[in-house]
């Protein structure tokens, strides 16, 4: 069956068990659910924060968003959402883009976008917190 002699005595099944074709197992599946659960209370908290900020001027918004509890909630929200949306968009790309090169480029661009959104947002939050 194979041209190369077996280098170890582990069976093929043992090597792939729990890992799957991508060698990363159910990592993304689990993370998508983990961040989905985290997003529920975080989204409610962020909506409450937005209601608190309604009608306030820039100075007041900067002070409230930069305060420790609000800044931490906003940062957690951004991290959880960026992780969730990266996995979700990757699934969409894998479903609809069948050209191998285009798919790889889009999956990379998707990761870059998610990281850029997360870091830009967190930079903004930290700037409000510490006045960088």
């Amino acid at each position, binding site marked *: 069956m194979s041209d190369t002699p077996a280098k170890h005595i582990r069976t093929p099944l043992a090597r792939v068990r729990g890992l799957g074709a991508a060698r990363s197992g159910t990592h993304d599946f689990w993370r998508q*659910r983990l961040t989905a659960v985290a997003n529920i209370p975080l989204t409610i908290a962020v909506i409450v924060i937005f*209601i608190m900020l309604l*009608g306030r001027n*820039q100075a007041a*918004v900067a002070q409230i*968003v930069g305060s420790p509890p609000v800044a931490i909630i906003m940062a957690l929200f951004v991290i959880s959402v960026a992780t969730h949306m990266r996995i*979700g968009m990757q699934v969409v790309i894998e479903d609809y883009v069948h050209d191998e090169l285009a798919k790889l480029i889009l999956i990379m661009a998707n990761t870059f976008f998610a990281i850029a959104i997360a870091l830009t*947002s967190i930079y*903004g939050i930290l700037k*409000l917190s510490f006045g960088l």
Partner: protein
Amino acid sequence: MATTRAPAARPLSPHLQIYKLTMTMAMSIVHRITGIGNYFGMLLLAWWLIAAASPSSYAKFEWFAGSIIGRIILFGFTWSVIHHALGGIRFLIWDTGHGFGPSEREWLAAATLIGSIAITVLLWIFGLLAMGGPL
């Protein structure tokens, strides 16, 4: 020997256009569309957070958010987030193996749509009143 032949016209597996559109199916499609919408909507959150540091950049964001187009986009983004959240809760319930009965799944799908519209409209009525009127 290896003469290429035109592939035989094989039957294809049925896809979306074959089936009657059901409520659960429509909500599944909307879940994906709202997810894509939320993905790009996060650009607005990043812009807002970066802009909040200075009065001049915040004025630009406020101009956008106060414009008709901005209001429509923010209203749509609100609904998109709420719908995706409720749809997500529905999928998490299904992940536990519950809610698959004929009436349960229809009820859950309807609740996702009605709930998302109701919560969005209530939030906006409350928000606009808190800001002192629709304009």
